[in-house]
């Protein structure tokens, strides 16, 4: 066994360290070859988006809600009805509760269980 007890396997930290150093050198090399005559703090340093105005970072991010767009669109009628019912007012929920209890009681009374 040799390097730090891991031999010459791909998991040897020395190899990873060497790879990291090589990558850093390559990045530095390509970065140095970049154009230096651009004007700082002008449009030349802004993100290029095919000529479009680049929105703020918060607006650029795709929200998780967007992933479910098809699902929400398909279930639109169901959600519309349910969202209307969910007013967030406790009195409304109590009324729903009492109405459902009353309907359940009537059904149970009719079928003769109670």
């Amino acid at each position, binding site marked *: 066994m040799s390097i730090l007890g891991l031999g010459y396997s791909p998991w040897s930290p020395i190899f990873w360290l060497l790879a990291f150093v090589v990558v850093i050198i390559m990045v530095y090399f390509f970065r140095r070859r970049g154009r230096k005559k651009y*004007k700082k703090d002008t449009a*030349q340093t802004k993100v290029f988006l095919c*000529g479009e105005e680049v929105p703020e970072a918060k607006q650029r991010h795709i929200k998780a809600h967007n992933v479910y767009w098809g699902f929400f669109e398909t279930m639109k009628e169901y959600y519309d009805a349910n969202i209307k019912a969910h007013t967030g007012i406790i009195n409304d929920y109590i009324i729903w509760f009492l109405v459902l209890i009353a309907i359940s009681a009537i059904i149970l009374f009719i079928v003769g269980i109670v």
Partner: protein
Amino acid sequence: MNLSAIKRALWAYHINTGSCNGCDIEILATLTPRYDVERFGIMLVGSPRHADVLLVTGPVARQMAPRLKRVYEQTPDPKVVLQVGSCGMEGGVFYESYNLVGPVDQIIPVDVYVPGCPPRPEAIIEAVAKAWVKLEKAEQVA
């Protein structure tokens, strides 16, 4: 003229501001094996951030004006603008159309004009050569 100030080949970014596509096809023709400008290192790039030359085609539709201006501002200095095609100079077949705000030189400064509807690839290559000379001078001044 001794072309020595620029140590690299020219890279061009092509922007269509509402062209009929005729000039765009002629620009592409310069890259085909018949003309093959890439043998001189001249090539189209996908971002103005890498470009020395802006190739502008079209008469500048109203929606494209701010975008053209933004692309011009995002191109690093020194740069030259080539206006390709007659419609970018005086409207061409789109003359007096309600949705135009061109010609191109009313939106951004133009260095080399290439007339024609569409111009031949030889004319575009000659214009790029003139742009190269102009860029050399700009580079020497800088």
